[in-house]
């Protein structure tokens, strides 16, 4: 939900992380419930991906900030229609 109402790119990114965490929790719960370790392995991979994503995402944000001096996503509307 945070993704939907915040404009700050970094906070948006954090919200995405939050979402991933929620999914992680779900996986772990299922995993425990099923007595199946695959779920937890999956969580591990999600964490891997999340880390990679954050790295790239933050790099992009930095690049944007360097060019526009802002991380406000609603200012980005050069490309439309």
């Amino acid at each position, binding site marked *: 939900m945070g*993704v*939907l*109402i915040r*404009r700050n790119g970094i906070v948006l990114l954090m919200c995405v992380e939050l979402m991933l965490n929620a999914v992680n929790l779900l996986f772990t719960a299922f995993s425990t419930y099923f007595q199946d370790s695959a779920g937890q392995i999956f969580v591990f991979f999600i964490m891997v991906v999340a880390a990679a994503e954050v790295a790239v995402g933050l790099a992009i944000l930095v690049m944007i900030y360097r060019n526009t001096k802002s991380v406000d*996503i*609603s200012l*980005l*509307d*050069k*490309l*439309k*229609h």
Partner: protein
Amino acid sequence: MGNYIALAIFTPLLGFVVSGLLGRFMSKNITGIISSTSVLVSFVCSIILFNHLSNGGDSVKLDLYNWISAGNISIDFSFLADRLSVWMMLIITGVGFLIHIYSIGYMHHDEGFYKFFAYLNLFIFSMLTLVLGSNYVIMFFGWEGVGMCSYLLIGFWYTNKEYGYAARKAFIMNRIGDLGLLIGIFVLFNTFGTTDYQTIFSGAASANKGTVELICILLFVGAIGKSAQIPLFTWLPDAMAGPTPVSALIHAATMVTAGIYLVARSSVLFVSSELASTIVLVVGLVTAVVAATIAIKQNDIKKVLAYSTVSQLGYMFVALGVGAYSTALFHVTTHAFFKALLFLGSGSVIHAMSGEQDIRFMGGLRKKLKITHITFLLGTLAIAGVPPLAGFFSKDEILAKAYYGNGIVVFVLLALTSVITAIYMFRLYFLTFHGEFRGTEEQKNHLHESPATMTIPLVLLAVLSCIGGFLGLSSLFSHHHFVDEFLGKVLTNAHIPHPSEIFEIAVLIISVVLLAIIILATRRYYISNKNIPISIEDETGVERILSHKYYFDEIYNTVILKPIEWLSRFAHDFMDRKFIDGIVNISGKGVTVCGKYLRQLQSGNVEYYLLAMVVGVITFLVIYQLV
């Protein structure tokens, strides 16, 4: 014998090709001679055929090849020379030949000389096809062909805009009739499975009565167009735009009688259909009266003759309507003689007057144009019905048949028309040839008699006009009615009692007396009292209506032409552009408009995109759960 048919038909075609293609490289005389000769050949063939038939020979049939074959339709390109055809052939080629000769002189100064002769030959060819065709389709072939030639010849002097319009009008009005004829032919096909004359006529008796009536009416519609009957008669006076020999040949002697030929040809069908015959009678009668009255007030020498032609054609249709087919053909013959004579005579006058056609500017021509004058006078007497010239006998016969075949009303109206005919013809004659010359000085000095190529046909036709009547002497004088005897074998005449002798004598005496009175009265009115017609605008009452030809053209203009023009604009500007194309364009534009609005969805804002995505997910979830 079949070869003679082919020779008769195709020599003029050859003449057309030769004079049309090579004409411009040959001298005018040679062209004229070639094309005249081609018609002469046809004429000779006609005489041979006539001889053959009148000696009791059988009808000659010539099959060329199978023209159209599709499904049930199979049409042979074949010709049939029976008595009716050969009779018509004689008139066409005979009068045609004379007119060809005449044209050599008349058209001598025209640059389109060779073209003119080519067209004339083409016309003769088409006309022969018309009368010789052995089925309705071949006849229609010729029928359209003569219409086309008529179009070409009326518009011969194409640089004049009015002439062009006249030509168009003629063609289109003919086409209206043609449509009727064409549909008639379709019905014939439907009913008899063929259009061959012989098959149809032998099967006519067993055909459905109503269908035959329908066929006859449709055929008559065709005849109305071609023979310039009410309501499609207005083209004929306008057709006078063509060169005068054309008027003589096509619009007096031959083509316009194609309608008569058609009805006479189908006499088997018409005899048994009362309704159609009545329609023919009524139309013919009304036309005869109306056209005659209009002719009184015309000032153009050729227009007077044109209306006279219309009126005389009406006469013939009356004869057809009462079932006296050979009588109608008899009148066709005599009419061909004297009307051709009159037209050629008027041509000679126009030639002398350097193209002037208005009788108000003529007068006193008899001194300069002696031969023309005499021949024209003979023609006038003939058409007025002075015994014993040709017109008397044929008209007299029609009157008698009408009286005995139908009744007193028709008789009286016809007689009245006859009187009016005499009046306008003598008006014409006196205004043209008597009194003072009213043209310009220049025209006066230019007045001259026409060359021999023109006067010889005049003389020959005058002779024919004088003696033509003896082909069908009424029972009063002879028991030998040649026309009736010759044609009676192919035409199914209705049975009409022979007129009594008292009737004949009465008609003879009355007509002579009446004519004498008319001649004197018109002479007094126009020559002695110098009542020269005034311009149309100043006339009042009935005269005005007559001068405006009963406003036929105007009515057609407002009732038919204008609405069609309006409809055309409406259909194009509104129906097509706005409505039909509008729908097409709207469906196209709809897409672009949709595109225009839909692209607004793509606002460029990520938050909004995310939101939209979630909305999409929700929508699908809902669909998923609900459905």
